Each structure stands twice: as C-alpha cells, then as structure tokens.
C-alpha cells in the first residue's frame, strides 16, 4: 500500500495558522447572522450591542488581534487519512502548533495544569483537546477552534431515555439555554449532540458548534428541529449581551449518532458569538 508521508513540521505550521486565524477573523456565517440580527432588532440597546460586536470583530480582523480576550482552550477535530504517515509524533506536532500560536500570536494562555488542587498556568496554553478519527484517504483534515469558557461553563448533558421523544429533547435543550441566560455572551451558537454514549454525545455537541450556522442537519426532521429551536430560543427575550432583544442565538446545530435501545443521550454545548473555528487539509 502506498503511504503518503507528511512532515511533522507541516502539521505544526497548520495548527499554528488555524488557531491564530480563528482568533482574529470571525467566520462569514457569523458576521452575516450578526448583520441580519441588527436589521431584526427593534430595541436601541440590542441594536447598540450588535453594532459594537460587529465593530469589534472588524477591528480584530483589520488589526489581527484576538476578537475576544478568552482565546480559549484549543480544541481540534482531526480526520486522519488511513494512507498517511507523519514522520514524527503527531500529538507532539499538534501541541507544538498550539504552543507557537498562543505564544507568537498574542493569544491568552488560559490552561491550568491541574483542575482542582494546583491550578498552575501552563503558560503556553497546552495541552489542547484533540479528537481524532481515522478516515479513508491520504490527507489530514484539521479543524481547530479556541473554546471560551464563559459559554463552555453553561453547557449541559442528560441521559434521556427513549420515552422522552422529540419533545423531551427540545425541552432539555431549551432549559439549558434558559438556565444559561445572559452568561455565555449571547447571541450564542447552540451545539447539540444526540445519541451514542455519554462521552460521544458531548463530543458531537462540540462538533456541532464548529459547524457554520447557515448549514442544516441533512435529515429534514432534525433540520426542522434546529429551526424550531432557534425560533423558540429567540423568543426567550435574553437578547444580545443578555440585555433583552430578539437575538439570543445565531444558530442551533444538531449532530446525531446511533445509540443504545435503552438510551437517548442529549448534550448541549453552548458557544458565544465569538464562535471561532478554522479548517485546513494537509
């Protein structure tokens, strides 16, 4: 079998560039959604907040500085081709890219070594969280994001059982968004993972926040659920910055997977309006 050799340095350079880019340049889907929301809002406060967010994101892009000071814990989804070999340690190459991005890109170092006792800053924002899947092909697709914790802390997971049905799923998602209220920097992106196991549902929810807000689930029933939830969330009145208005979310993205006969896990991963992610193929 022919195997394509990829230089570890290429992996490092790609990760570095993706993390810097996503922290400076907001996605076009988010900018379009913010501009559309500005037209929709009636209240002067909501309009003012949205205008300032748009101005902020434009400043960040023009000056190549982080659009939010919380440049996040780096999260990477890697689709690793089965006909690829990296000449070096792939994990080390990725973490080196994280280190270089946060040190050289003027990004904030927000990682502590031990969660409970020491809480000492690692000073280079490593280690990143890396989710790897093996896929057919001779390339490596890396999707990288910086996940802020104002919104991450507002996330929720529940092991629903099949009897809850679609209504139970929607209720749990709406409850999580309502409980988050003004805290996760609305307007938010709501990532939902349904199915599989406890940990996979959470991973799917994170993956959902990395999807553009102008895309829909391929199954029309879930696509309709995304639309219905977005409408319901925007009727809650939380609004931009939680100061009231019609724009509480810019999008609801659902990802699904097969699950057990006894289960229906639902995870809600909330992302702020600074929904940062970028993707490249090596």
């Amino acid at each position, binding site marked *: 079998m022919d195997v394509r050799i990829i230089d570890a340095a290429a992996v490092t350079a790609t990760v570095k560039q993706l993390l810097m880019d996503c922290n400076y340049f907001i996605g076009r889907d988010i900018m379009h959604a913010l501009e559309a929301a500005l037209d929709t809002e009636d209240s002067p*406060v909501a309009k003012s*907040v949205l205008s300032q967010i748009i101005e*902020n994101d434009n400043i960040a892009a023009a000056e190549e*500085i982080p659009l939010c*000071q919380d440049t996040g814990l780096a999260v990477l989804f890697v689709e690793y081709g089965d006909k690829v070999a990296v000449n070096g340690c792939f994990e080390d190459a990725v973490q080196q890219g994280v280190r270089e991005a946060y040190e050289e890109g003027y990004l904030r170092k927000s990682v502590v070594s031990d969660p409970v006792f020491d809480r000492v800053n690692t000073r280079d924002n490593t280690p990143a969280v890396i989710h790897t899947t093996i896929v057919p092909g001779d390339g490596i697709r890396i999707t990288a994001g910086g996940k802020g914790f104002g919104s991450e802390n507002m996330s929720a997971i529940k092991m629903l059982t099949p009897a809850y049905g679609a209504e139970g799923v929607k209720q749990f998602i709406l409850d999580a968004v309502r409980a988050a209220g003004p805290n996760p920097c609305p307007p938010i992106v709501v990532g939902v993972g349904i199915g599989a196991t406890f940990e996979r549902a959470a991973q799917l929810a994170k993956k959902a926040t990395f999807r553009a807000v102008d895309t829909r689930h391929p199954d029309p029933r879930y696509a309709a659920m995304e639309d219905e939830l977005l409408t319901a969330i925007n009727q809650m009145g939380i609004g931009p910055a939680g*100061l009231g208005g019609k724009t509480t979310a810019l999008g609801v993205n659902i990802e699904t997977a097969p699950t057990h006969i006894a289960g229906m896990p639902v995870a809600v991963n909330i992302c702020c309006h*600074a929904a940062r992610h970028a993707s490249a193929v090596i």
Partner: protein
Amino acid sequence: MTVKKITLPLTNEDIQSLHAGDSVLLTGTLLTGRDAAHKRLFELLQKGAELPVELRGEVIYYVGPAPAKPGYAVGPAGPTSSYRMDKFTPALLDLGLKGMIGKGARSQEVIDAIVRNKAVYFAAIGGAAALIAKSIQKEELLCYEDLGTEAVRRYTVEDFPCIVAIDCEGNNVYKR
C-alpha cells in the same frame, strides 16, 4: 440612547444617579481582578490579614486580558462572567469596594450587598474585547504577577463603555 459620562473614583452622588439600564462611559482608573485573585483576597480577609491592594472606593473589572501586541497599551480585554466571583464579592463590598464591571447575572447575596453598601454593578459587552481595549490607555501591575493574565492591575481608562446592570437600589437589568 443617552450616555452618562462618569469620572472615577465613583462618588456617592454618582452612584445614586445611576439606574439599571443606563449606558455609561467611565473615565479614570480602576482595578482588574478575576477568579484566582478574588480567591486569594478572600482568603487573606478570612485570616484577618492585610490585603496587598486597597479596595475602598475602587471599581474592579473582572478581566483576564490577552497579551498586548507590540505598539498596543493593552491586549484585548473584555469582561469575564461575574457569577464566578459571587462567593467572594459581598466581603469585598463590605470592605468598601464601590463598583464592579463584568458580565451576566449575580446572586441574591451580591445584590443584597450592593444595596447594603450603596454600590453599583456594571456590565460590559462580552466578546467585545478588541473594541473595549481601545478605551484602556495604560496598565500597571499591582500584585499577583504569578497569576499571569489573572494578576491584579490598575487600568487607566477613557470613555470605557458599559451599562448599569444592578443599581444601588437593587434594580437589575437581567431580571425579567
């Protein structure tokens, strides 16, 4: 939308003139501090020890800035979620802290302490860090340098934009 210009330090008259929902531009100096600094200050207070920084009459901004690019006074510096400081806040207000800037809702204990001490809680726009940094002219390290971004600093600000979220009578923009 009318905007009130306020010069820091806050006077009691300033505080009484502010109502929940007011848009405000702050000019003067304020302190920065977030989770780890609050924990340390609180632990010192519990021990009855002296604090390394004077809080009386001050405004504290819940922020952990990104590093400043060369040529910039400060890096992007937007507010962090305030509720994480709630456990420590009443003690600081009782000590004479007059204002806080952050984002999001506060506990009833914090609201009670705001009313009791005639203080004010401002909200800045979360995620508007690059824009907010334009209103910060200067930073000076005061203590807890080992905390990195969480160190306590003094910021000199001009027309720092925020909204009165909880006023000294306990009116609250987040309650609806």
